[in-house]
């Protein structure tokens, strides 16, 4: 048997995976769609006399995408908690690359694809319901009327969609790696490690800025964002910002770097997995 990546074998593995897991995934899908529909639906019904709850909709969208996505990714290898399943999985004659690609497909393509389609379908339906049943109070001025018209999420805020999708890919690649590192309670443990590391990075970022920028220019350092002012707060003496091209590169390089790194780490973790 070929010891390198084989596409026909990958499809056999995929077929086996779908056949063995489809019922539980369909249940997850129904539960997920049901929860979103219920929460979003209640929001709409309770706002038939109020402006469209755009902020709350964004919150539901983001929570479902990021919380649901990371939870799904962090539990992808939950079967390792049952040793028998772990043994079957590791000893199935397929390469680690083929096995990892199943995880990649489901956490990076299938989940987000189904989520976006599901959410937008619900959004389409509920926006139409809102627009049909909205009772605008008489005291509302004409210039405020647009607050009482629901716009589909994909048309109203494309930047949010883009940012959240990029964040989704980063967070789920971390959660997927966590699923391979922790056998039990992977989501909770990965979240704790992530928060500790993030706090550490922010702290180190501040300490590095203190080291490279003199105290008299920028007292106590700062946390680097995309740019910052130097000198007194009220009368700044200058603004430090990355060159525009750098800014564009950093915006793409950091997420790509994290994404590739965590998937590479997942590959080696799977390769060295012991049960």
């Amino acid at each position, binding site marked *: 048997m070929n010891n390198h990546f084989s596409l026909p074998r990958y499809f056999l593995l995929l077929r086996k995976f779908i056949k063995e897991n489809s019922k539980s995934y369909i249940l997850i899908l129904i539960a997920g769609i049901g929860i979103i529909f219920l929460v979003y639906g209640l929001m709409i019904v309770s706002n038939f006399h109020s402006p469209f709850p755009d902020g709350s909709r964004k919150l539901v969208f983001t929570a479902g995408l990021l919380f649901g996505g990371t939870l799904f990714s962090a539990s992808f290898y939950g079967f390792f908690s049952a040793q028998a399943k772990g043994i079957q999985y590791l000893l199935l004659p397929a390469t680690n690359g083929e096995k990892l690609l199943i995880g990649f497909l489901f956490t990076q393509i299938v989940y987000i694809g189904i989520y976006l389609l599901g959410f937008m379908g619900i959004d389409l339906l509920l926006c139409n319901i809102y627009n049909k049943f909205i009772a605008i109070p008489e005291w509302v001025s004409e210039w405020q009327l647009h607050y009482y018209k629901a716009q589909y999420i994909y048309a109203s805020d494309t930047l949010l969609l883009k940012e959240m999708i990029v964040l989704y890919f980063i967070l789920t690649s971390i959660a997927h790696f966590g699923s391979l590192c922790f056998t039990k309670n992977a989501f909770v443990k990965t979240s704790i490690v992530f928060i500790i590391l993030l706090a550490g990075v922010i702290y180190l970022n501040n300490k590095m800025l203190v080291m490279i920028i003199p105290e008299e220019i920028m007292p106590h350092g700062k946390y680097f964002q995309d740019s910052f002012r130097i000198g007194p707060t009220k009368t700044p003496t200058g603004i430090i910002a990355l060159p525009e091209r750098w800014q564009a590169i950093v915006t793409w390089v950091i997420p790509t770097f994290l994404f590739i790194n965590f998937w590479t780490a997942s590959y080696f973790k799977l390769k060295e997995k*012991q049960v």
Partner: protein
Amino acid sequence: MIQFSDIYFGYSNAKPLYSGLNLSLKAGSIYGLLGKNGAGKSTLLKIMAGLVYPQKGQIEVLGANPIKRQPSFLEQVFFIPEEIDTPNIQVLDFAKEHLPFYPKFNFSQFKNHLAELEVPLTNLKAMSFGQKKKVWIALGLAANTALLILDEPTNGLDIPSKRKLRKIMAANIHDDRCIVISTHQVRDLDSLIDRILLVDEGEVIANAGTDEITEKLVFKQVGNQEYLEEPLYAENNLMGQLVVMKRSEEEPATRMDIELFFNAGIANKKAFNKLFNH
């Protein structure tokens, strides 16, 4: 077929399970891996399959390094753990999904084994633990891998199924295949096993064929203090004592008693090591 050279393994550095383990297993035999609880039997099976990695030493299984878990190695190995798990699908679909991964998989053989073991052709979810275990055993045998590893295969099986299992397994051993069975239920499989691997405290006490054992040892029931020579092991029972002694050339061979052999081996490691560990 399986060669362990100077293997060191432990779940923690402070407490090694195996230190400098050397072991050789040949094809064409059914090995009975015996040992007390916590002796490292399951770990030994996992090392063979590449499920855990030794800290030091060389392993060669079927000419490959199991640690790499390459498909060409995995297609020759089938491992049935003590605790099993099955998905929620039809039993024949379950086999069909495994079939393409094992080149020598024989689907009609699988169906025959299911019939012999009286497993219904239903959804796996509707089956009892014993029936699910029989499905896995049938799958493992039908995969026709060169190495079949079974960890406590008779746990959860009823008495008639144990008898049928012995029959099926005996019919499935051939010169190119090695079956390793770890078990505490030695009586269930004593007529099947033709080589015994006795481990205790990270050490292989005996690795010998049953004919070699009966050639070197006698197992007999004696009255109190009837023996002339000091036995290797003796245990009291209602009729006197059950003893294990070295066999002299003129003495007739006795039937092997695996349980007695096990107890004797654990109690008198040094003598057994000298007699059988080669």
